């Protein structure tokens, strides 16, 4: 691989032991996939920081890195962890919070922003064409498809190490020639609400797998768009989609296989919705607009019924904006619990809920797999109606 003089210095350890290690990993992985050079990044988003997943080995590695003087060279954010650091929502195993805090403190020492959210674009929106290194599949597909920034689906360690050198290897979706649709998807549906967008996304992911779809569909809002993209990144390993009218990059669809998706291809499990114990919005983490919309529904339907719970999960930056605006307080007055830093998919919920209803296709996909919960798919408005008994 070709390295610039400055990159070589880091590779040879002239800067620090920590950045040398990070650079060596990036170069070797790049060589393994045939990358010819590195690319400078402006933004990194690290996944793989839940103590639940990385355990003592991961915790100790991150602490050692921080103690060896590793520091993020670019703006860097963090994915959600297993619990809300601001209040107790779910009971945690003994010692869990203490070790999770050690992990967070290591990242703090390395100069990461302790955002703990899957929506880093609400903390800092990358510009069109910017090269970034993001973990978290839903953020990756949003960045590539909606923002027009460029990132591969980075794994846990690499997204951390890329932040420490401000580079990643130049391959995959960083390169123009690879940002091309591989299949055309024609969506023949009428109005698409958020829940339907999730189901549609799951279907597209199953069909496309690791390809890049060109999707023609009725116009949807940002919420439905984010839910659809997150879903296809979960059921498939889609890193980028062209959505007609949304994606700014040009696409040549001539000669591509065309798949039609109609009503009959989209099955929705709504029947158990009324019986759900938890109603939940915020996968990916809710935006300020989502929270305003949900408040509107509660203001017309009433408050959460006794014995039911309604969660909104969001990032701490969005929460701050919602608190400032008064939206957060008004939602809580209606019985809504606003939870930051985590979400039902990554929290160790265990058997806390037998049935959950959500507007998220990604959560629909993971909740039953991770916690064995029965899951219903409903739009945000339907969720509020069911939770308030209207």
């Amino acid at each position: 691989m070709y390295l610039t003089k400055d990159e070589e210095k880091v590779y040879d350890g002239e800067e620090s032991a920590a950045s040398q290690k990070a650079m060596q990993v990036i170069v070797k992985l790049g060589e393994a996939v045939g990358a010819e050079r590195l690319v400078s990044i402006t933004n990194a988003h690290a996944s793989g920081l839940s103590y639940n997943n990385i355990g003592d080995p991961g915790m100790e590695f991150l602490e050692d890195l921080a103690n060896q003087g590793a520091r993020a060279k670019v703006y860097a954010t963090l994915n959600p962890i297993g619990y809300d650091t601001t209040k107790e929502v779910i009971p945690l195993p003994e010692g869990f919070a203490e070790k999770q805090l050690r992990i967070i403190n290591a990242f703090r020492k390395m100069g990461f922003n302790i955002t703990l959210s899957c929506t880093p674009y609400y903390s800092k929106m990358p510009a069109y064409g910017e090269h970034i290194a993001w973990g978290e599949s839903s953020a990756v597909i949003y960045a590539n498809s909606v923002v027009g920034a460029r990132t591969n689906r980075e794994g846990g360690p690499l997204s951390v190490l890329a932040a420490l050198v401000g580079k990643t290897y130049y391959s995959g979706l960083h390169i123009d020639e690879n940002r091309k649709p591989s299949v055309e998807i024609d969506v023949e549906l009428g109005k698409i609400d958020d829940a339907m967008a999730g189901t549609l996304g799951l279907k597209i992911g199953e069909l496309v797998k690791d390809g890049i779809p060109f999707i023609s569909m009725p116009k949807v809002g940002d919420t439905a768009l984010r839910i659809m993209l997150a879903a296809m990144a979960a059921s498939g390993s889609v890193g980028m989609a062209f959505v007609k009218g949304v994606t700014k990059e040009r696409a040549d669809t001539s000669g591509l296989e065309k798949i039609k998706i109609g009503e009959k291809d989209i099955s929705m499990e709504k029947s158990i919705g009324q019986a759900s114990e938890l109603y939940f919005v915020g996968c990916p983490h809710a935006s300020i607009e989502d929270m305003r919309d949900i408040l509107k529904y509660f203001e017309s339907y009433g408050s959460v019924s006794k014995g039911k719970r309604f969660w909104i999960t969001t990032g701490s930056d969005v929460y701050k904006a919602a608190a400032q605006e008064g939206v957060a307080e008004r939602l809580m007055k209606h019985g809504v619990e606003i939870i930051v830093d985590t979400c039902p998919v990554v929290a160790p919920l265990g058997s806390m809920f037998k049935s959950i209803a959500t507007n998220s296709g990604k959560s629909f996909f993971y909740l039953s797999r991770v916690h064995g919960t029965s899951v219903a798919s409903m739009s945000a408005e339907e969720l509020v109606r069911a939770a308030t008994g209207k």
Partner: protein
Amino acid sequence: MLRLANDGVAMVKIKVIVEGAAESEAVVSLNPISFFGDIDPKTGVVKDPNSNIKGVSIAGKVLVVPGTRGSTVGSYVLYALSKNNVAPKAIVVKSAEPILITGCILGGIPLVTSSEDYLFNGQVGGKRVKIDPSSSSLEIVQ
């Protein structure tokens, strides 16, 4: 190809992925390993109940395994093995995937690949092997 030199030493061509020389006893796992879950990061002992080397320690050995699989946490386990002084001296695989490459660099563990089936079918288990990155070769000392 395997060739026997006059002094009874077998030489195998290797490709160096992570630099480093090593000489030790070979431990051969017939099936791919997930470092996360299959190996105890504190002792280097193989925990996988279905492994042909269950209960064996890979500490200080040359681990020969067709490939690796599983979670990205595997990289951190390789780092932990090194930190706890129970890492293998080197790892030989048929093909190296990102989790393994990352872990070997983090842990400072030499990593090489070889397409020589003979290495992976169990025959070299217990034999002394020597990895020489400068000549891209692995010697089996009979």
